[in-house]
């Protein structure tokens, strides 16, 4: 008899957690902080940043070669061309903005809406986003070594991608 309220409380807790989870896909406040700090290390700076970006994009095109057709305008045929290097860095810079404001709900909402509008007309299939995620989830540990949390990235990338895709 004494146990009953406790069981109820536990259940309520589980339900509340599940609801919260559904909202941010497991990318909760603490997880966001973790992603932020790990991103700062991986994203790095200068020449190293260019290499990081290049590794991510090579891994994307190795999965979905057809995606290259979207980037004709930025000289995708030569991945080392200044035009495409600039583009690679631009995209990661966009991701950098989103990740760095993961802990500021309102600003984050604005930015994701903005990115959604930017991507709307381009008809990007969902599997290209998946390829981006897979690439990132492979290059990040290579860059960060042992100190990285796959689940945190899994959840937060999905959350960000959902915001950009709008569904």
């Amino acid at each position: 008899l004494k146990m009953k309220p406790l069981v109820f409380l536990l259940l309520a807790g589980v339900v509340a957690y599940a609801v919260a989870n559904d909202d941010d896909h497991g990318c909760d406040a603490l997880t966001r902080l973790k992603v932020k700090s790990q991103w700062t290390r991986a994203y790095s700076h200068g020449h190293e940043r260019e290499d990081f970006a290049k590794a991510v994009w090579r891994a994307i095109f190795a999965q979905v070669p057809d995606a290259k057709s979207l980037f004709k305008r930025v000289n995708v045929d030569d991945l080392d061309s200044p035009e495409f290097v600039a583009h690679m860095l631009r995209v990661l810079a966009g991701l950098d903005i989103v990740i760095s404001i993961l802990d500021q709900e309102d600003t984050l909402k604005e930015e994701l809406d903005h990115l959604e509008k930017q991507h709307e007309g381009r008809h990007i299939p969902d599997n290209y986003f998946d390829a981006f995620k897979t690439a990132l989830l492979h290059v990040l540990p290579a860059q960060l070594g042992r100190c990285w949390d796959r689940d945190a990235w899994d959840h937060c990338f999905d959350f960000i991608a959902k915001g950009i895709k709008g569904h």
Partner: protein
Amino acid sequence: EWSELAIGQADMMKSLRLLLAALVVVTAVAGDKDKFDRDELIEHLVERTGEVTHKIYEFEQKLDARMDPDRIRRAGSLRHRVEELEDPKCPHHEHSCGGYDHQCISNLFFCDGHVDCRNGEDEKHCTSPLKAGDRFIGDVVFDYCTTRKPEHITLVVESVNTAAFFKGFPKVHVHMEMESHGHDDDDDHHDHDESSLPNDGFYSFGTHELIFQAPEKDGLSLHGEFDGSNFDRFVGDIVTVSSDKPCARFIFHRDHHDDHHDDHHDDHHDDHHDHRDHDDDHRHHKARHHDKHHDDHHVEHHGHN
């Protein structure tokens, strides 16, 4: 390169030998008068051919001795030790392409399918030194942090998986087997605890490092480093995830015994090492001594980071 030259020479030797053989045949067939003289002449020629062939083989053997992969590997290990003592050639997250034309490229670009080094070295050595079924036995050098205080750790490779779109960092799944020695002799019921920890990590072709996650809550994880030439031995550091500093070290040797069972004993290990290095006792100790120096340097090196 000189090795190509040597191969060219070997080819030349082969054609020369063919020519000699042809000569013998031609001599045997040609003419039929003066049978007696001819037989003597042929005998002489055959003998001479034999001598020349012997000399050719001898020369080929000398060439092979100089191209002996094992010898090149040992020299490479020595070179690596010297390089460890020098200031790093490349910035953090980058690695040297090697050779005489100095170039550093990102670790992320080794074995990724794109040639990034001018000399192409980044795509030339892309066979994983680890494969499913491999076993490495590590002997403790020092241990300031593990709770089990094992004398030996056996690393059993369960699987190695390479993602087709990111080939430079194969994922490695292992089991770490060890016997606990965490307590003093008086406490002997703890002495024979055996553990087998599953552990996930990856290998980096750029740095020849094996990087594992921390398998337990204590935040201790294994970090292995091959010297880039000898893939039968690596220095395995136990590092704390937060500081990245080694607090224990094991020297791992590949276990070449295929018929190996789980019951290894200390004397068995020694046998194993002697066999592997073709060493007598004296040289064996000397090798250990060198290891120690090398390892001390490692601590210092990490300490500055």
